[in-house]
C-alpha cells in the first residue's frame, strides 16, 4: 500500500471499527487510535516528502495512477506537493484535537465519530487527488456529513443552519461541476485526449474564450466554501449552531479546501481566466476581509465573533491568491495553516467556556482568567496570535501577504486595495482585545459560579496539540516556507 492511499484506507478502517463498537467509551477510543495513526502518518509523510523531494523533481511526488473509468479517462491518481503535505498535517492535527474535544459526546457517540471521520476522509482525499473527478468526489464526501453533524449534535437553530450550510455548499459544488466539465471538454485543445488529470490539463493551452467563461464557475465553486463575500452567509449560522469539534474541523480544515481548490484548480488550470477575472474577485475578497472584521465587532455571541473573524481571515487568503504574487501566495498558504490552527483553538476554547458557563454571550461573561486560568491564558495567547503578534504563525502569514501584495508587480489598484485590507488588522485588534479585556480580564460577573471545573486532561491535550504548531510556525517558519516556496514553482511558471 502506498503512503498516500493509506490516508484513505485508515479512515475507512476506523469507520468500520466504529460501526462495530458500542457506547461512548469504545467509540472515542477507536476514533482516538485512528486519528493518532493518521497524525503519525502525516508526520511521517512530512519527513518522507523532504527525503523524496531531494531526489525527485516532479511536481507531485508519491504519484500513483490507476485507471478507474477508462471511457472518460478518469483515474484514481494521487500525489502530493509541499502545499498538500502541509495541509494534510494540519488536517491530522485538527482531527485528533477534535476527537479529544468531543470526549464527552453523550448523544449517539458512534454516529458522531463516524461522521467526523468521514469528513476527514473527504478532506484527505481532496488534498491527495490529482484527478479532477476524484477530487470532486472527495470534495462532496467532505461536505455532506456536515448536515448530520450540525443537525443532530448542534445547538440553537440547528436544523435551519444545517440545511442552509448544506444547500449553499452543495449549490456551490454544483456550479463547480459545470466548471469541471467545461475544463474537461476543453482539455483536448492541443489535440491530446480528454483528461481529468490536473497536471496534464495545466500543460494544455486552453483557448482564452473558454478560460474566461469557466474561470468564474471554478472560482465561485471553490470559494463559497472559503466564505467568499457575498456567499459567506452560511458560515456564521453554521458555526454558531455546530458542536465544538465540528466548528473546529469546519473552520480549521474544511474551509481550507476552498483556498486550496482556487489555487490548485481554478488558477492553475485557467491562468488567463484568472488574470482576466482577478480584478473582480479581488474586490469581493477584499470586501469580505473588511466586512468580516467589522461584523465581528458588532457580535456578542463568541461563536459569531469567531465565525466572522474567519470570513475576514479566509478572505485574506483569497485576496492573497488573487494578487498573483508569489510572496503573497506563500503567505496565503501559511495563513491557511495558521488560521486553521488558531480558529480551531478558538472554537475549542469557546466550547470549553460554554460547557462550563452555559453561555456564549460576552455581556454575561467576565473575569474568566480568575476562574479558569488555563483556558483563560490559552485564550489570550490565541487572541494575540490571531491578530498577528510576532512570534506566532499569524504574523508570518500576514507579513508575507501584505509585503507580497504591495511589492513587486503590484499596480495602483492592487495597492489601494492592499491598504484597505491592511486596515482590517486594526479592526481585528479591536475585537480581539475587547474580547480579552472583557471576558478574560474584566470584572467577575455576579451571577456566575466562581468554582467552575478546571480543564481536563483530554481538553489540555487537544489544546496543546494545536498550540505547539502555532508557536512552531511562528518561531521557525523557514522549513515550512521552504517546502511551500518550492512547490509554488510550477504555479509561478504557469500563472505569472
Amino acid at each position, binding site marked *: 500500500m502506498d503512503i498516500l492511499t493509506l490516508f484513505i484506507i485508515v479512515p475507512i478502517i476506523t469507520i468500520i471499527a466504529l460501526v462495530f463498537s458500542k457506547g461512548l467509551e469504545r467509540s472515542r477510543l477507536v476514533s482516538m487510535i485512528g486519528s493518532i495513526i493518521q497524525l503519525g502518518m502525516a508526520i511521517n509523510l512530512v519527513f518522507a516528502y523532504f527525503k523524496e523531494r531531494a531526489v525527485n523533481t516532479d511536481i507531485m511526488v508519491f504519484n500513483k495512477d490507476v485507471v478507474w*473509468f477508462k471511457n472518460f479517462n478518469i483515474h484514481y491518481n494521487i500525489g502530493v506537493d509541499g502545499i498538500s503535505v502541509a495541509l494534510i498535517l494540519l488536517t491530522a492535527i485538527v482531527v485528533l484535537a477534535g476527537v479529544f474535544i468531543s470526549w464527552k459526546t453523550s448523544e449517539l457517540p458512534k454516529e458522531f465519530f463516524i461522521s467526523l471521520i468521514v469528513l476527514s476522509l473527504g478532506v484527505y482525499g481532496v488534498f491527495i487527488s490529482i484527478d479532477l473527478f476524484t477530487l470532486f468526489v472527495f470534495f*462532496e464526501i467532505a461536505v455532506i456529513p456536515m*448536515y448530520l453533524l450540525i443537525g443532530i449534535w448542534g445547538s440553537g437553530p440547528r436544523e435551519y443552519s444545517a440545511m442552509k450550510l448544506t444547500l449553499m455548499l452543495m449549490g456551490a459544488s454544483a456550479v463547480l*461541476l459545470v466548471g469541471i466539465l467545461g475544463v474537461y471538454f476543453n482539455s483536448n485543445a492541443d489535440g491530446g485526449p480528454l483528461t481529468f488529470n490536473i497536471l496534464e490539463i495545466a500543460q494544455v493551452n486552453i483557448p482564452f474564450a473558454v478560460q474566461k467563461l469557466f474561470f468564474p464557475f471554478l472560482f465561485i465553486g471553490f470559494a463559497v466554501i472559503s466564505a467568499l463575500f457575498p456567499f459567506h452567509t452560511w458560515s456564521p449560522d453554521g458555526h454558531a449552531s455546530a458542536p465544538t469539534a465540528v466548528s473546529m474541523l469546519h473552520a480549521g480544515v474544511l474551509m481550507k479546501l476552498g483556498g486550496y481548490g482556487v489555487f490548485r484548480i481554478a488558477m492553475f488550470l485557467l491562468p488567463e481566466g484568472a488574470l482576466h477575472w482577478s480584478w473582480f474577485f479581488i474586490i469581493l475578497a477584499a470586501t469580505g476581509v473588511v466586512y468580516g472584521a467589522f461584523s465581528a465587532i458588532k457580535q456578542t455571541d463568541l461563536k459569531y465573533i469567531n465565525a466572522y473573524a474567519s470570513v475576514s481571515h479566509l478572505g485574506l487568503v483569497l485576496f492573497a491568491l488573487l494578487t498573483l504574487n508569489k510572496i503573497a501566495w506563500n503567505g496565503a498558504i501559511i495563513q491557511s495553516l495558521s488560521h486553521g490552527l488558531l480558529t480551531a483553538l478558538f472554537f475549542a476554547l469557546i466550547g470549553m467556556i460554554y460547557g462550563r458557563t452555559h453561555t456564549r454571550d460576552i455581556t454575561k461573561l467576565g473575569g474568566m482568567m480568575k476562574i479558569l486560568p488555563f483556558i483563560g491564558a490559552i485564550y489570550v495567547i490565541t487572541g494575540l496570535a490571531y491578530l498577528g503578534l510576532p512570534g506566532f504563525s499569524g504574523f508570518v502569514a500576514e507579513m508575507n501577504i501584505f509585503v507580497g501584495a504591495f511589492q513587486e508587480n503590484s499596480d495602483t489598484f492592487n495597492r489601494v486595495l492592499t491598504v484597505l485590507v491592511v486596515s482590517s488588522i486594526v479592526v481585528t485588534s479591536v475585537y480581539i482585545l475587547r474580547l480579552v479585556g472583557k471576558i478574560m480580564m474584566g470584572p467577575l460577573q455576579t451571577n456566575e459560579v466562581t468554582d467552575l471545573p478546571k480543564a481536563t486532561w483530554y481538553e489540555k491535550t487537544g489544546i496543546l496539540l494545536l498550540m505547539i504548531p502555532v508557536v512552531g510556525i511562528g518561531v521557525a517558519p523557514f522549513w515550512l516556507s521552504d517546502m511551500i516556496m518550492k512547490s509554488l514553482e510550477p504555479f509561478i511558471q504557469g500563472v505569472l
Partner: protein
Amino acid sequence: MNFSSFLLMRQEILLLTIILLLLVAEISISKSKKQSIVHLALFLFGIHTIIGFFPMETGNLFGGMFRNTALIHFFKNVLNVGVFILLLQSADWLQEKIVDQNKGAEFFILLFSSLLGMYFMISAGDFLMFYLGLELSTLPVAALAAFEVTKRISSEAGIKLILSAALASGVSLFGVSMLYATSGSIYFDEIMAVISSTNLTILGFILFFAGLAFKISLVPFHFWTADVYEGAPISVASYLSVISKGAAVFILMILLFTVLKPLMHVWVNIIYVIAIATMFIGNLFALRQQNMKRFLAFSSIAQAGFILLGLITGTQLGTATIIYFVLIYIFSNLAAFGVVQAISLKTGKENMNDYEGLYRTNPNLSLVMMLALFSLAGIPPVAGFFGKFFLFTAAASEGYYLLVFIAVANVTISLYYYLLVVRAMFLRTSDQAIPYFKNKLYMRLGLLVTVVGILVLGLYSPLYDYIFELSKNLN
C-alpha cells in the same frame, strides 16, 4: 426459419411459461396452502432471472418484427433484476393482505404479463409490435393499481391510469399512423431510410412522442403520476416508477437514436424544453409533499427530467449513460420504495411526519432510506452520483452547458427535499416514533440487494465500461 431461431425469444417464452404455470398452480394448490404460491412465483422468477444472464444469440424474427441485440438482452436482464427485487419486497404484503383474498396468483400473472409486454416493446422491430407491447405492458398495470379494491383510493388510481393510458396510447397510435402515411411502412428500418422532416412527419412524431412521454411521466404528461402512485399499492407504484419508466425510456431512446435520427433537429428542441420543465416541475412540486408516495412520485418525475439530458445527445455516450443511470435509478428507487413499503405494511403510516425519530428506533431502515435518498440526490460515494455525473458529462459533451447548469441547480433543489426526509429520520426525535420492528426474510433480502447495488454499482467501473461497449451497436 427453423425452430432454433425461436430461441431468440427465450426470455419471452420462459416468462410465458411461468405465467401459465402459475395459472395451473392457482387451480391446483389447495386452499390451506395458498401462501406457497408466493414462494413458488419467487422461485420461478428467480430461476428466470438467472437464466436470463446466459448468453444469447442476436438477430431478427418474423421478418424483422422482433429483434434481439446484446443491448436489448442486457436491458431485459436489468428489468428482470428490478422486478425480482420488487417481488422480494412485496412478498410480505402479498402474504399478509392479498393471498387471503385469493388474489395471489392474479398479482403475479398480471405483473408478469405487463413485464412480457415490456419485453416485446423493447424488442420491437416495427411499430405494430411496439404498440402491442406498449398496450400489454400498460393494461395489466391498471388492474394492478386497482388491486386493493376495498380501498376507494385504489380503485380511483386504477380508473385514472386506464383512462389516461388509453388516451395516451390512442394519441400515440394516431402519430404512428401519420408516420406510416408519410413513409409507407411500419418497419423501423424502412422508415429510417425514407423519413424526412415534412410537416406531417413532425406532427406524427410529436403525437407518438406524447404517448411515450406519458409512460415516462414527462411534463406536461405527468398529471396522472402523483394520484396513481398515491392510490395504487406501493408495489405497483414502485413498479410504475421503476420498471415501467425504465422500459419506456429505453425504447424511446432506441427510436430516437435510430429511426427518428433524421428528425433530430426537431426532437432536440422538444427535449430541451421538456427536460427543463420536467426537472423544475418535478422538483418544485416535491418540495411540499407530505405523503411519501406522492413525494417519491414527484421525485421520480424530476429524475426523468435528468434522463432527458442523456437523451438529447443522440450519441453512444448518451446511450451508455442513460442505461447506466436507469440501472442505478432502479436500485435507488426500489430501496426507497422498499422502506416505505416495509413501514406502511407494519404500521400503515405513509407520511413524512411519521418518520420522525425513526433512526432512534429503526436504525437499519433509516440507513437504507438515507442511502437511497442520497443516491437519488446524487451524493458520492453512492451510485447515484456517478449516474448523474455521467449524464451531465454526456450533455456537456454536446455543448449543452446551459442545460447542465439548470440541471445542477435542480440537483440542489432536490437535495433540499431529500434532506427533509433525512431530517425527519435523523435530526428529529418524537414520542410517537414508529416502534422497532423486524422485517421478514424476503423484505430484508430485497433491501439488502438494493443497498449492495447502491454501494457497488457506482464504484465498480467495469460495469460502465461493459455498458459502453454494448451501446456501440445500437443499430
